């Protein structure tokens, strides 16, 4: 679960790395191989995107003195 901006930015960077990884795999593997190997990475991207959406969907109350 993402709890702060630093974790948010790292999660975004990780998703970008996984996207890039799949783009390269799509070029370097045969279709049948790519279709099988991509599944867990795509689910991983989906999970991480959901965590980002969950974080961005709420804003904790700010305490004022």
């Amino acid at each position, binding site marked *: 679960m993402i709890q702060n901006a630093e974790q948010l930015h790292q999660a975004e960077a990780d998703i970008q790395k996984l996207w890039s990884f799949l783009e390269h795999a799509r070029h370097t*593997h045969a279709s049948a191989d790519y279709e099988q190997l991509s599944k867990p990475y795509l689910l991983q991207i989906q999970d991480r995107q959901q965590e980002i959406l969950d974080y961005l969907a709420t804003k904790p109350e700010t305490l004022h003195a």
Partner: protein
Amino acid sequence: MIAEVVSLEALRERLGKSTPRRQFLFKRFQMIFDLLHETRKVKHVYLFGSVAAAIPSPNDLDLLVIMAADFTIKGLTQKVLSVFTHYACRIRYNADVFWVTEGIGEKQIKAVLDVFSRNRMQEPQPLLEVMR
């Protein structure tokens, strides 16, 4: 990111004995490991996630498997193919096997190792390379 290299036996001693759940998952890991090596195309097997961490009852196995550049799933037996088929592998072995061939290039492999070397809280997590 540098992975710690461990033998299968050292892995069993260290992470595969302490609880029934760990014993169960280690057996599944050993089955996957043997099936992967039946292909004679395995280059690296990395273990990460809750099993590699000191959690008494891990949920499942997380593996990153690097195969030789000329590896293909074409022609594999059904049993070996199940390791490379996401849903079959989850059901049979309680494992998420992330795999790719060396053909993707070292830069991309390093990038994905970096992603898997941190947990969802972005804290460093153990990454073990398991050798025979």
